[in-house]
């Protein structure tokens, strides 16, 4: 990180190689839109480069980068919501089926419904769920990224799953009509 703070291009390239897919994957899980995820990832790495000198090493580099990713993504989503009233005539994001490129082929249809339900979760539950199940991070790291305790993350995940089941239940009945 010190080399990056000093403007070392090679060190930055190595860091990018290590984290590009992780950052993009988390951003994609949230935004469910490839262009938005790309915008987030670009913004995250620019922030990482410009703030490298402020990294004190109190947390793991990965935790720090994931935290930036979550913040940048949430800001983008907020911005999009603020200006969504201007997109007259365009289809609402909730109406678009998202297909994550990493899902196994035979599960793609099921995952579409799940991602639709993820969008209905409250923000904290959404973050815990995406970091744990879409990115596959250990619970303790999720807690570190969210700045909370392991127990709190487990509770968020439990509530999140309950809410997902409820949303999916509603979807099940809608689908049968």
């Amino acid at each position: 990180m010190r080399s990056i703070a000093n403007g070392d291009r090679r060190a930055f390239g190595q860091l990018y190689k290590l984290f590009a897919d992780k950052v993009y994957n988390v951003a994609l899980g949230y935004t469910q839109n490839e262009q938005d995820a790309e915008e987030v990832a670009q913004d995250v790495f620019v922030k990482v480069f410009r703030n490298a000198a402020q990294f004190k090493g109190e947390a793991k580099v990965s935790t720090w980068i994931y935290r930036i990713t979550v913040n940048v993504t949430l800001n983008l989503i907020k911005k999009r919501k603020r200006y969504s009233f201007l997109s007259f005539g365009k289809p609402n994001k909730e109406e678009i089926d998202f297909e994550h490129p990493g899902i196994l082929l035979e599960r793609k249809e099921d995952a579409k419904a799940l991602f639709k339900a993820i969008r209905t979760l409250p923000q904290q539950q959404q973050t815990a769920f995406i970091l744990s199940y879409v990115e596959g991070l250990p619970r303790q790291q999720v807690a570190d990224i969210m700045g909370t305790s392991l127990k709190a993350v487990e509770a968020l995940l439990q509530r999140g799953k309950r809410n997902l089941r409820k949303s999916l239940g509603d979807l099940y009945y809608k689908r049968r009509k």
Partner: protein
Amino acid sequence: MDQDKEKWIDDKINSLEGMRSAKAPEHLFAKVEQEVFQPEAKIVAFSQWRAAAAVALLFLAFNFWAIGQQLQSPDSTAGQSTASPEATPTLVSDFKLYDL
């Protein structure tokens, strides 16, 4: 019926099993590099612009005021140009250079 529903929901919840991470697009690094290593354009703060505009306005106002004062004063050069030659007899007599 309920069993069907529960199975349907379970299938959705378990659909992330075995998933791989999405890959960042190839061109992304070039975009990041361009933004990071390009020299930043110097941005002048709005307060600086305001201060500069205020100084310029003051300067202009002072100029207008000075021109106005000059035009109003009775001995201004602008006034002289319209005055009759009789109004300045001494000056005209001073110009008799070849009167030997």
